[in-house]
């Protein structure tokens, strides 16, 4: 029995490949499996070409795997564009409609097994039927997907569309199923593993970031839309309203970050979400939050850069700007989510940190996490919430008092006796401007100290396994790295995983401990200029033997790319 199965669906905009992919993912959920679905589309805003990539498994799925088991092509219009995103090998099966014309070269070259199914012709025979449902039926046969599972899924997904639509879809699926019968199963649908019966969620990384924000206590959000971060904001808008919070659409990112800082100055935990171009615009004001010690959280859903770059595709290339982009000496927090579901935990934790340490905090997510839907175990509420140290009104108030921890109690408008002016100008403990050496030194020390002294606990990184070889990675490269380590383990290799969740402030001692006994490090990242590698070199001691596997977007890192690098050390 296979642990995973993966399917790529491609077709013109009208073919409904995304709906078919969603139903497949839903079927996995019904069967108590895990899975993910990513989507890809051409440059058209609506319509055009699209692709859905689905991978289902017995265990939580955190990347799209190496080669697709099945590729169903409703037509060949877009195949050249998507070819690089749909790795196929001799074990792969490609299902296509003979009426779509000649099979393109790239497909032939892959060595995949080709299977003709006259999807369009079959669809014509089903009143009200749609070609994506016929394709789904064919997939059900090829995957040996139990009939009951499929029926239950269709009821669940399409039930609210009315009896007629449901019946038409069922008939189309049945027709597709029958058409593929001669071929039979080419793969086996995974079976569920041991199960504690707990809640499973279907969630995207962007919704997870939103949920993490509100779990952390965020009740004010300022928003300016940008791909691929918009869904964080669109998820938050109605949900904040239900929770008694507010979302404001700003005129630009200069405004959205300042609105968030204004809301937080008012005592309400505040957040904004953006992508690289917006983050670049926000930089000056993020420095303001650092200097004025107003907590604020910025979720950066990274995309291909620089400039407008590749808005719809993923890359881990905002690390430098997030860590080093502020002018002046501006200690702040940078965290990174390492899976779809971790977008929730990391955002929630970051809200807590920003509030606790009264500074700006950037959460790095990326397109491949944010816009991927996953079936996951319900992310437990780790209990991290906004807990700002507030002025208790006893002593005469000094907003920027030089405390031992570096954190000074914050007064909130409405509180008598706490009136102060938050300032981006260097200041004295009282908040009054100062350009004196000793005040600058003292406030710089204070702002640095509060981050250095804080105990971040185990959450600073995911550390798994043992061995003299370690993969050191971050963010969405963690998923494929973890799978590569499992592949290496099957060869008898012991490899450690160290995936950093906290990029700033740097955790020097914990990092050294994590690498204790490690003689070889493989750095894995999705950036052209090896931003993460240079970050590691700048801040940590690394063993003598270091390899780097880096690749820019838009292609995701595949487990076997990491695995081949590890195998060099066998």
């Amino acid at each position, binding site marked *: 029995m296979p642990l995973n199965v993966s399917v790529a669906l491609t077709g013109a905009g009208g073919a409904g490949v995304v709906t078919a992919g969603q139903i497949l993912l*839903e079927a996995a*959920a019904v069967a108590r499996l895990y899975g993910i679905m990513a989507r890809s589309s051409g440059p058209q805003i609506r319509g055009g070409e699209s692709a859905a990539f689905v991978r289902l498994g017995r265990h939580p799925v955190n990347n799209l795997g190496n080669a697709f088991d099945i590729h169903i092509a409703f037509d060949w219009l877009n195949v050249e564009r998507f070819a690089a995103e749909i790795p196929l090998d001799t074990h792969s099966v490609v299902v296509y409609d003979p009426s779509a014309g000649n099979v393109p070269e790239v497909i032939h070259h892959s060595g995949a097994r080709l299977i003709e199914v006259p999807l369009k012709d079959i669809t014509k025979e089903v009143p009200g039927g749609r070609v994506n449902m016929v394709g789904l039926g064919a997939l059900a046969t090829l995957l040996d997907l139990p009939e009951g599972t499929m029926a239950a899924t269709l009821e669940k997904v399409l039930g609210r569309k009315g009896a007629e639509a449901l019946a038409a879809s069922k008939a189309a699926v049945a027709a597709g199923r029958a058409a593929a019968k001669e071929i039979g199963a080419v793969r086996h649908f995974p079976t569920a593993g041991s199960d504690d019966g707990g*809640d*499973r*969620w*279907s*969630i995207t990384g962007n*919704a997870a970031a939103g*949920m993490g924000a*509100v*779990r952390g206590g965020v*009740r*004010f959000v*300022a928003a300016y839309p940008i791909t691929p971060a918009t869904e964080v904001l669109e998820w938050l808008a109605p*949900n904040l*309203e*239900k*929770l*008694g*919070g507010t979302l*404001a659409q700003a*005129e*630009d990112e*200069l*405004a959205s*970050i*300042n*609105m*968030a*800082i*204004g*809301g*937080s*100055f*008012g005592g*309400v935990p*505040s957040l904004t979400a953006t992508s690289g171009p917006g983050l670049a615009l926000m930089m*000056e*004001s993020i*420095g*303001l939050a650092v200097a*004025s010690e107003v907590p604020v959280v910025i979720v950066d859903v990274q995309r291909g850069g620089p400039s407008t770059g590749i808005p719809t595709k993923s890359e881990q290339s905002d690390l430098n700007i997030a860590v080093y982009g502020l002018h002046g000496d501006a200690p702040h927090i940078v965290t990174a989510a390492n899976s779809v579901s971790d977008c929730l935990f990391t955002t929630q934790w970051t809200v807590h940190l920003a509030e606790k340490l009264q500074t700006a905090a950037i959460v790095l997510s990326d397109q491949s996490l944010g816009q991927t839907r996953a079936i996951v175990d*319900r992310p437990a509420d780790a209990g991290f919430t906004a807990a700002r140290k507030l002025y208790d009104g006893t002593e005469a108030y000094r907003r920027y008092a030089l405390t031992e921890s570096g954190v000074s109690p914050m*007064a909130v*408008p*409405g*509180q*008598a*006796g*706490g*009136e*102060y*002016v*938050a*300032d*981006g*100008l260097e200041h004295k403990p009282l*908040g*009054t*401007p100062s350009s004196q050496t000793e005040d600058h030194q003292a406030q710089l020390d204070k702002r640095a100290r509060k981050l250095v002294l804080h105990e971040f606990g185990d959450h600073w990184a995911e550390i798994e396994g043992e061995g003299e070889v370690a993969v050191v990675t971050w963010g969405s490269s963690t998923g494929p790295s973890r799978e590569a380590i499992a592949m290496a383990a099957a060869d008898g290799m012991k490899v450690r995983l160290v995936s950093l969740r906290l990029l700033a402030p740097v955790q020097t001692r914990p990092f050294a401990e994590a690498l204790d006994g490690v003689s070889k490090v493989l750095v894995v990242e999705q950036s052209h200029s090896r931003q993460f590698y240079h970050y590691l070199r700048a801040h940590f001691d690394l063993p003598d033997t270091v390899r780097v596997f880096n690749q820019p977007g838009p292609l995701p890192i595949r487990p076997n790319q990491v695995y081949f690098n590890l195998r060099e050390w066998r």
Partner: protein
Amino acid sequence: MDGAEAPILNAKDFKSDYKPVWCPGCGDYSVLSSITKALAELGVRREDTAIISGIGCSSRIPAYTSVYGFHGVHGRSLALATGLKLARPELTVLATGGDGDGFSIGGNHFMHACRRNVDITYIVMDNQVYGMTKGQASPTTHPDWEGSKLTPHGTGINPFQPLAVALAAGANFIARGFSGDPNGVAKLIVEAVQHPGFSFVQILSPCVTFRPEQRDWKSMHRQAAVEATSDPSRAGKRLMSDDGMNMGVLYVGQRPVPASPERPRATLQDIERSFVI
């Protein structure tokens, strides 16, 4: 906030002990006095009031008052103030700054704050120059002013018309004052704060250091000959033929103000349910 009888505060109670950095004779001293007078007149509490500013000589104002304040970055005071007011609608929120801060680097926020009509009062001390950076032309500088090294032949660019722009963009209250008339300005600020929605008050406030000729404003300004109107087309007409020296309330609109957040009607557990398969 606690419902107890509010102590009566006078203008002095709204001033801080911190000494302004302004040049002697700067118009901003009077504006500060007008703001503190207006706050006393309004009967607000210090703790329930916030003054938000950007960067510039005029943007130094929050530190000279005793209410909550935020001295942010250049040009972003309106965004900060909007965020604060939306998150804490019960507060009285004022934004203050200069013509460079508000109409140049912050011009986009000015337009959208007018449009958004959040209930804040925006006070711009217009001296037609960048005072803090030592005398460059601002958006409201006349095209033939040759006093700046940066534009030795003048800008040759028509000045920005803040009141007309505010009207076109949807500001709900528009007034102009002259810093040399602190009582008149205080009265304008009181009305501006009391009027719901976004209120814009332009105050001609001389920069005696870089625009000494602005001392003549004393004899040039005049009370507007007509009453405020709530008819945008009449206000527009008046503003387009205005020489910039008519003082008073020029426009009082009736646009609806954005609603405050509602009471929570769901818990986090309710919200989570939408993810459960």
